[in-house]
């Protein structure tokens, strides 16, 4: 099982702060594609963090990982 966190406009679009997903190890890119079609959202400019570190599209996600979708940040 992986935990997926959403923030800012993504959280509002999906209506949830977090979801949990049972799946085999998969690449960040695959998870993005899955969520884009599942929730009808655009993740093109959204960064991904796996266990609180930014991850590339090809990085593998394993059971137990926490994946966060990070829209362009606007702190400061």
């Amino acid at each position, binding site marked *: 099982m992986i935990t997926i*966190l959403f*923030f*800012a*406009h993504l959280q*509002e679009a999906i209506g949830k702060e977090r979801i949990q997903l049972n799946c085999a190890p998969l690449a*960040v890119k695959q998870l993005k594609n899955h969520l884009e079609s599942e929730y009808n959202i655009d993740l*093109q*400019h959204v*960064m*991904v*963090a796996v266990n*609180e570190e*930014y*991850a*590339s*599209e090809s*990085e593998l996600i394993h059971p137990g990982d926490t994946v*966060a979708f*990070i*829209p*362009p*940040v*606007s*702190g*400061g």
Partner: protein
Amino acid sequence: MNSQRFTITKEPISIEEVVKKVIRPEAGAVTTFIGTVREFTNGKRTLFLQYEAYVSMAEKKLAEIGEEIARKWPDAKVAITHRIGKLDISDIAVVIAVSTPHRKDAYEANQYAIERIKQIVPIWKKEHWENGEEWVGNQLETKAYPTGKPEEEDLQ
């Protein structure tokens, strides 16, 4: 106030508290950057802002900025506090304090810190106007990161 040097808080930020974390006998210069909520952006009047963060990762990324600065300016000591929640006009959103033995480094390292915050720290603000609200993206809006993360080189 948290004694950590890199922290996210829901409370109003005390500038003095952040500065105290970096004052030391060997440093004669401290610079601070204080980001406040501006009333007008591109002619549009803001009523208030809502800041949200991925708190645990944001604190890690703030500390990472501290490490980047330690590599570039070995004599610098940095503390950063960012506030989240509802902020009114002129409220303080972020305080960055940098102490160095000599003042030029304190300005440069401080400016580096705010630029990096705006690139890599997972904090978002939602602007609330009289007739609407919107989550603010980065200023380029369309910035894509080929490696999936913003590099130090992305700093303009």
